[in-house]
């Protein structure tokens, strides 16, 4: 009975720790977003809807990060990590219109070629995806090894 109580306390403690970690990571990411956004803010006048687009991205990215942190030390952590990498690729490709942004500001048609940026971002996201895959394989491998030993 006492051991059961101790075990449930330990699970709660672990979860609280995970939640705290997720909160701190999200908070740091949000601070980083605010910092980067302060540089991008001057161009919002020319790009209507940019803030909304970036905010949506940040919300989903943080949510996936929080979920991944909450299920840390399980295989689901890597699912969220993979989803995060795929989300970054998909969202960037869609919102950047394949790298060619066409905007209209008053009487001026503006075309920004972000294909180079998009290509590097997708390559880095693929690197993140590969990392998540490898982590998942490593995790399953370790789990199998542990099960085999016991």
């Amino acid at each position, binding site marked *: 009975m006492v051991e059961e109580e101790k075990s449930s306390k330990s699970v709660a403690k672990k979860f609280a720790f995970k939640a705290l970690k997720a909160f701190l990571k999200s908070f740091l990411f949000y601070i980083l977003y605010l910092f*980067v956004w302060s*540089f*991008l803010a*001057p*161009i919002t006048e020319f790009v209507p809807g940019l803030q909304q687009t970036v905010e949506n991205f940040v919300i989903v990215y943080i949510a996936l990060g929080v979920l991944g942190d909450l299920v840390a030390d399980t295989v689901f952590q890597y699912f969220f990590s993979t989803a995060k990498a795929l989300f970054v690729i998909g969202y960037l490709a869609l919102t950047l219109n394949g790298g060619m942004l066409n905007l209209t500001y008053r*009487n*001026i*048609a*503006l*075309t*920004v*070629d*972000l294909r*180079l*940026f998009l290509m*590097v*971002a997708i390559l*880095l996201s693929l*690197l*993140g995806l*590969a*990392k998540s895959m*490898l*982590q998942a394989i*490593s995790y399953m*491998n370790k789990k199998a090894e542990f099960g085999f030993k016991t």
Partner: protein
Amino acid sequence: MDVSIRMIGIASTFFWIILLAFFASAAYSVKDLHLGVGEPLLSVASNGDLLVSISINIENGGYYDLGEFNLTTKVADVNGSMLAEGSTFIPTVKRGGKVATFHNLTFNFNDLLEKGSYYIFNDANFSLAAIISMKIAEAIPVKASSNFSVPWGAPFYNFELGEPTFEPFNRTHLEVVVPLSFENHAFFDVYGEIRLRMYNSEGLLVGRGETVIEAPQGFLYNGFIVFHVQTAENIREGFFEVYFSTSLFEYGPLVITYG
């Protein structure tokens, strides 16, 4: 395996930071990029073409060099025919640097007249297409284009010859006085001369005259051309051929009937 995965993670994070920092700072640099366009300066080239020079000042206060700055302007008439095209290319504007240059557009009036004498006597609207392209931080190509409507003022707007008056000059000749008027709506002064040839109803040349004209921008010109014709000629009806000769263009004949 853990070490290699960690190394992938570190490398990925490092490059993400580099990419975001570069992109954010390049975007932020745009705010410190100042492009100044001056008033157009007009001059006449040695071959009679009209040269429109627009001063361009680029001040790059950003963090990165600006590459491949290109300004292209195209002027077309109402039918879409190209009248003038100019391009200015600056390979690099260093960060913290300033570049001042001129963007030139050359109008060949004789080309313009080949497309129609309409523009000598009638106001119109030309379309001006301006395209600016550059590489922000020498890596992010940006292109901005816009179309403007540019009013064209005719140099001989509302050109009219009045009814000629005939007065006896001597026993053999009559003095002919032909009033003429026009408004100079053009953005340049008109200096030159107008020559007139008078033909009777049978198509015979009966007299000729000329006058020097000086019409600054916006000037309403009223003048006369005086010449003499032989009394014996049948001159009560016929037509004039008008020839225009200015520092910018030659045009003629413009046929106007009288009588």
